[in-house]
């Protein structure tokens, strides 16, 4: 739902909508009390539909990144527990194709919704920071130019935030295998493909299998 008091212009528009809303209700009320009630119900339902339900269905704006220099390949990597997996490093090296690879890693700070809304996310961010540090160290050890940041708990939102400062040629999202990945259950890959006009590669990292080998 869009906040009608997000800007002065929105708030001023809201004043006029409220005036129109009540003028119609009062006119209906003075014609017949039941008509006034009917106008109230219809207008309130319409307001809820426009404000809440229609707002949810809006397609997000697709973001088109600027092309990078020919000798450079920019990759945005989004991963959490799987961020240090060997499959991911292999994929990044393959995707760079002999060019200089600039990698930007985003580790979403996974948290519970209650803790997120109460801004109690220090522990989640600390855990994400540890994973990010380990990941950057392993990437730099194999010669990749890597930087990174902690992202929002919602991986799709974390991608959108990262795209504001980093313009990638492609996107790699690393997850656990199907059946163990919450991101796959929540349709993160599909949502990201729909939302961003950047080629997306999905890498599955099976940490259990890696440990046993």
């Amino acid at each position, binding site marked *: 739902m869009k*906040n009608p*008091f*997000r*800007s*002065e*212009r929105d*708030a*001023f528009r*809201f*004043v006029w909508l*409220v*005036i129109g809303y*009540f003028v119609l*209700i*009062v006119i209906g*009320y003075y014609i017949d009390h039941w008509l*006034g009630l009917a106008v109230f119900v219809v207008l309130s339902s319409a307001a809820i539909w426009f404000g809440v339900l229609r707002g949810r269905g809006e397609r997000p704006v697709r973001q088109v990144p600027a092309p990078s220099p020919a000798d450079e390949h920019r990759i945005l990597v989004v991963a959490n527990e799987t961020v240090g997996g060997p499959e991911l490093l292999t994929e990044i090296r393959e995707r760079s194709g002999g060019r200089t690879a600039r990698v930007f890693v985003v580790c979403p700070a996974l948290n519970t919704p209650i803790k997120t*809304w109460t*801004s109690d996310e220090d522990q989640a*961010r600390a855990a994400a920071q540890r994973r990010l540090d380990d990941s950057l160290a392993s990437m730099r050890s194999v010669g990749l130019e890597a930087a990174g940041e*902690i*992202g*929002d*708990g*919602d991986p799709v*939102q*974390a991608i*959108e*935030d990262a795209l*504001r400062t980093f313009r990638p040629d492609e996107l790699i999202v690393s997850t656990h295998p199907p059946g163990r990945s919450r991101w796959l259950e929540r349709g993160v890959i599909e949502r990201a493909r729909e939302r961003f006009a950047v080629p997306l590669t999905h890498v599955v990292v099976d940490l259990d299998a890696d440990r046993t080998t």
Partner: protein
Amino acid sequence: MSAAAEAHHGPPPIHYSSRISPAVLGMFLFIASEIMLFGSFFTVYFFDRVANHGVNGHWPPPGFHRPVFSTFINTLILVTSSGTMHWATMAIKRGNRAGLQAGLLLTWLLGVTFLFTQIVEYHRLGFNTGDTSFAATFFGLTGLHGAHVLVGLTILLVMTIRAFRGHFSPEHHHGVEIGGIYWHFVDVMWIVVFVTVYVL
């Protein structure tokens, strides 16, 4: 402790996502708290109205007269002040300082006129807060809104003084924007109070 942590003094750096910025969250929480506050007063008013209407068949109760016409004029004054507030904001966005100053001054004067008229009406009503539950809820709702107008006038006064002292610019006018949002909120709440208490 790491070297970076040792070198850092003061509060920890702010971190937040674009999903919910502090400003938007703050405004949501503010509006939510105001809705709960006004909602509780409206609940009492409607309960009293339903309960007493069923007994006496009249609303307001016999002997009580609401000054609808003068309050309607007062409502127009407050709605006009929203227009002048919007004009002031648009003016500073275009770099028109005279427009900002005139808009804020007019808004403040209109707000003072509204509050003054409401106080005069209180004196002319002929009933007081202790005269039946209708009087208590009437003064409770309109008085609660009047308190919000007083807060809004204080904010407007500070904004006006700042505007005349050369503050605000097309790039930096957050103070005007936030104050304007609050003033429009006060206007919206009055429309709800006016229609509920005076018209219906």
